[in-house]
């Protein structure tokens, strides 16, 4: 009996000591602001790059910064990790939401406690955050993706869209605007959207979905995805199905993910913004909001370090708005 208790205690202590070092990254000093960043899920290079930019800004501003989240794209897990964060009494939370409504309850509670909430990359419900750092206006992004599509297939054709889920506000907004543009603008009229599929930011799922799309729509010309996971996966699927040249993939992707496809000529254009700078900007917005120098009024301005000035738009949206379009010609300039 005593032996078993001793064993149990020993086990726990061993486990404890091994992982005590993996504890909280930030020290709580009285004056410094503590800012937490919570991505949709960790483990995606895109979010890691955003975090790197955010860390850079945190260093410049002298704030404590913690990057934490669940490793899976799961709504309940994100809610739990947000509640976790709130329990640690941060000054500000920067979050990219998997489901805009589901994350609202803990964020609303946070705001009630005086914590500033800034969303980035994927917005939350408008009442659950103070500001939204949007990488591109939804229309800007939609146009950029259609422009990439034109680079691939100037003659037009059938298009399919892949989004993370019906509750990803940015993906769904992009698709809605792209569909409208295809119907209303002469420049894009040659494209015909035929299907929207969901792949949950999952690599293998995106490949499966893309292959299925090519099967279900034999005349499919292009697959466009706002998800940085799905766009490269579609490119892979096209390669795997042997349809290079017949079907193209484009959308949002990190240069590192699609470098090989641009170089071997199977794809012609992808688009993104600099995620590091998006993260960088979000920290500056958070700090300005905490200092009280940034108010949620249309037209207010905020200075984001080396990026310059940004203006607050409707509903607290601040647009970063600097798209980058990658082609085989310029891909080597980008190292992330």
């Amino acid at each position, binding site marked *: 009996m005593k032996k078993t208790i001793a064993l149990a205690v020993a086990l726990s202590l061993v486990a404890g000591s091994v992982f005590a070092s993996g504890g909280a990254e930030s020290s709580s000093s009285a004056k410094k602001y503590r800012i937490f960043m919570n991505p949709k899920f*960790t*483990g*995606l*290079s895109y979010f*890691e790059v955003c975090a790197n930019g955010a860390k850079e800004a945190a260093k410049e501003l002298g704030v404590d910064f913690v990057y934490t989240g669940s*490793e*899976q794209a799961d709504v309940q897990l994100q809610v739990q990790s947000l509640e976790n964060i709130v329990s640690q009494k941060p000054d500000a939370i920067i979050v990219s939401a998997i489901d805009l409504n589901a994350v609202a309850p803990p964020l609303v509670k946070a705001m009630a406690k005086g914590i500033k909430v800034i969303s980035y990359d994927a917005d939350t419900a408008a009442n659950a955050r103070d500001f939204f750092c949007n990488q591109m206006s939804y229309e800007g992004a939609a146009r950029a993706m259609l422009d990439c599509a034109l680079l691939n297939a100037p003659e037009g054709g059938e298009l399919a869209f892949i989004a993370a889920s019906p509750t990803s506000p940015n993906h769904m907004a992009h698709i809605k605007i792209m569909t409208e543009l295809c119907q209303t603008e002469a420049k894009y009229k040659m494209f015909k959207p035929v299907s929207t599929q*969901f792949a949950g930011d*999952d*690599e*293998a799922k995106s*490949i*499966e979905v893309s*292959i*299925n799309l090519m*099967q*279900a729509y*034999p005349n499919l010309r292009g697959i466009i995805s706002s998800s940085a*996971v799905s766009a*490269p*996966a579609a490119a*892979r699927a096209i*390669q*795997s199905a*042997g349809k290079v040249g017949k079907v193209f993939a484009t959308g949002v992707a990190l240069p*590192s*993910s699609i*470098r*090989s496809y641009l170089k071997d000529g199977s794809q012609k254009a992808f688009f993104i913004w600099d995620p590091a700078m998006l993260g960088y900007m979000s920290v500056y917005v958070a700090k300005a909001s905490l200092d009280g120098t940034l108010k949620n009024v249309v037209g207010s301005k905020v200075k984001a370090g080396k990026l310059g000035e940004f203006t607050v738009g409707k509903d607290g949206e601040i647009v970063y708005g600097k798209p980058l379009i990658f082609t085989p010609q310029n891909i080597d300039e980008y190292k992330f």
Partner: protein
Amino acid sequence: MSAALDSTVPNGRDFRMGLAAKVSRNTLRLRVVSVFLSFIAVAVVFSLTTPNFLTLQNMKIIAFNAALLTIVACAEAMVVLTRNLDVSVGSVIGLAGYVAAKFAAAFPSSGPLIVIVAVAIGLALGLLNGLAVSYGRVPSIVATLGTLSIFRGITYIIGHGIEVPSGDLPKWMIRGADATVFGVPLIVLLALAVVFVLNQLLRNVPLFRRVYAVGSNPAAAVFYGLRSNRVVLFAYAVAGALVGLAAFLYVSRVGTVTVNLGRDWEMIALAAVVLGGVSTTGGSGNLFGVLFGALILSSIDNGLVLAHAPEFWRMFIQGTAIVAAIALDAGIERRIQKMFRHKG
């Protein structure tokens, strides 16, 4: 002494030679046939209701998707035959695949060494599972539940959560995954080879046949002098190695490798095994059944997409198919037992 024992180690359920042996060999075939017929039924339903289903191109896609699943399901079947389970399969794919991918990215010209790395890791992980279950006497569902978390955690620690982009993998891996031989995808041929070879081994090589014996009647196996601990360990090790191979193929297929690689595969693998007529009470089942089980799952998936059916019908149909398959299987088994009773 053991050689003599080996030659009399029975295949599956028949402890009485002669008629009983013939009957049960035939019922094993009967089971495979029933799975095969179910597959045909599914194929017929879909070819009648959806366009494009019965095309060569589509058949290739179904076969391709089923191929990886088949290999993993064969691995799972090895373990299930011993009356155990392995729910850590997905995490083994993750760990073996991730390490192999990092290795490939770091040493791109190491060629086939990458495959060996993947298989070796799978083997090692399988041994760990087997040790816990056999010598550690931890019930298999608990042990593999634990290792599921442990292996996934190790993958995370190794990777710091960062993905390995497909551009970092050597070209031959990516090309190889898409390669075809006379129009048949290479991966499909590999899967078929695994099924054939493993099945032959299980039928004829004593080392493998003991797997059936231990599963169908552990007590009797011990009386025979079989060291069931070693057999179970062996089964898990073989399973692990197969999963390692599958991990390598999966990485070649997918390109970009994330820390979440392989998640949830255990459920689908178990489904294919169960659909394929391999009994979870151990000791009986044929790998060809598993092959058709994987084909059924893949066809349902594919058919639903072609039929533009919303994706969630897939889960419902797969789940119901599993229940139906088990019920059918149990019905057949009961009929056999009735026959035995009559024969006295």
